[in-house]
């Protein structure tokens, strides 16, 4: 084989080699892309399952919370009213009997209101602002601490799932404040900026060290729940200086 023939073979083989290399490259790219798509689908399915699980848990917890509240209401409010009614109706005085009948009307109203809360459908009719207002009023009515709500109405439009999660997270934050912080004041501020809307929960209670492991898991759960609805959870606290929680949700 003379050198000229060699060069021809080199040219032909190099061309074929480059063509083959490029074909392999393109096929490999499509293969990797397909694999990535499959992985992404799997990840999305996993995320969807996790989201559904979170929503189910949240619904269950809200049910439990509602039942506890109903129990408390039956014992502290309706039970008391029924005792008063019994006393009044047993009295021979006509004015006491009238008062007893008035108590009966009040009991009927209270029971109706209470029965509504047993069904989670009430969540659809109530706005987040109204829910927070009710919760704060309840806290204040017990004389536990002063509360205030300041809202620009930026959370009035929410999907049912987002509302459920936010309600649960806010309930949890308020419960934690009452249980552990003994604050004199709880302030909730709802506002928005160009990219997101924020709920800020501020108390002037005992505060804590967020780096401690005992408090970490609760925060982690709240953070994860916010993430399932595409939101963020921030917490800052210091012993003796209260706690500041921010719940952020993009538009």
């Amino acid at each position: 084989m003379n050198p000229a023939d060699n060069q021809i073979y080199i040219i032909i083989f190099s061309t074929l080699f480059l063509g083959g290399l490029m074909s392999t490259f393109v096929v490999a790219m499509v293969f990797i892309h397909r694999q990535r798509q499959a992985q992404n689908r799997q990840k999305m399915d996993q995320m969807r399952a996790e989201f559904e699980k979170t929503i189910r848990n949240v619904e269950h917890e809200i049910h439990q919370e509602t039942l506890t509240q109903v129990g408390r209401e039956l014992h502290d409010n309706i039970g008391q009213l029924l005792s008063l009614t019994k006393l009044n109706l047993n009295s021979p005085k006509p004015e006491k009997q009238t008062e007893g009948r008035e108590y009966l009307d009040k009991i009927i109203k209270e029971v109706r209101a209470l029965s509504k809360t047993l069904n989670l459908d009430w969540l659809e009719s109530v706005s987040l602002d109204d829910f927070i207002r009710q919760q704060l009023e309840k806290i204040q009515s017990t004389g536990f601490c002063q509360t205030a709500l300041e809202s620009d109405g930026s959370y009035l439009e929410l999907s049912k799932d987002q509302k459920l999660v936010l309600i649960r997270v806010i309930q949890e934050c308020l419960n934690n404040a009452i249980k552990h912080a003994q604050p004199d004041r709880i302030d909730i501020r709802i506002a928005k900026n160009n990219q997101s809307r924020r709920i800020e929960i501020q108390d002037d209670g005992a505060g804590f060290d967020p780096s401690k492991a005992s408090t970490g898991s609760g925060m982690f759960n709240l953070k994860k729940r916010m993430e399932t609805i595409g939101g963020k959870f921030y917490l800052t606290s210091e012993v003796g200086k209260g706690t500041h929680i921010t719940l952020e949700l993009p538009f």
Partner: protein
Amino acid sequence: MKEVNLDLFFDRLNYYQLSLAAFAIAGLFGYSLLSTAQRKNEAVRLSLGILVVVACYELIGTFVGAQQIVNNWVYNLFNSHVAAILFFLLLRSFLKRKSHKKMVNILIVLFLLTSLVLHLTGFVHYNDSGEYISFLNTVLMLCCCGLYFIELITLDEFLDVDPLREFSFWASTAILFYFSSSFMIYISHKYLYTHHLDIYYMVREIPTNMTLLCNLLLCMGIYSPLIKDRFKLEIIHV
């Protein structure tokens, strides 16, 4: 004054030049039927630009050759520079990341500057067989194709699309194949033409047919939005 030899020009016209001219006319016709919004699509505009430029320079090259004048400058200017830049821009239009788009801009400037320096220093001549410029633009073109494929396998925007139905994928693949398969032929152009004319004519078929395939695909890219509108059928997504 030398007389224009049209007979030889027409004699030299073969399926290749005629097909390219047909693609360019079909592309222009298809483009005229597109809506204003569809015409604004960068990929469609550049595809049409490539079809027209390639058809024009092949006809000019054949015409100049038919006048017994060395026509290498036509290919050096239009094929290695104008068409190459249009291909760079087409690949840039497929990229999503701004940094990658910037990289392509840098590669274009780098290519033009290198070419200018090589010409000004006399290292290459405008009428030579253009091995160095072809080598340079092929290497840079392969880098641009690489950028597209990197985006394809890393960006989340591509996760929802089927690459086999994407114009950008097929165009990038066609460009990749065209430049990589023509690479060895362009850089060995002078050697083959001087020493092995028979083999030169044989291997020249590779870039010729790749150009036809590439232009056919670009033409389809122009017609794809039309077919989608008229027949509710999307062959490839532009």
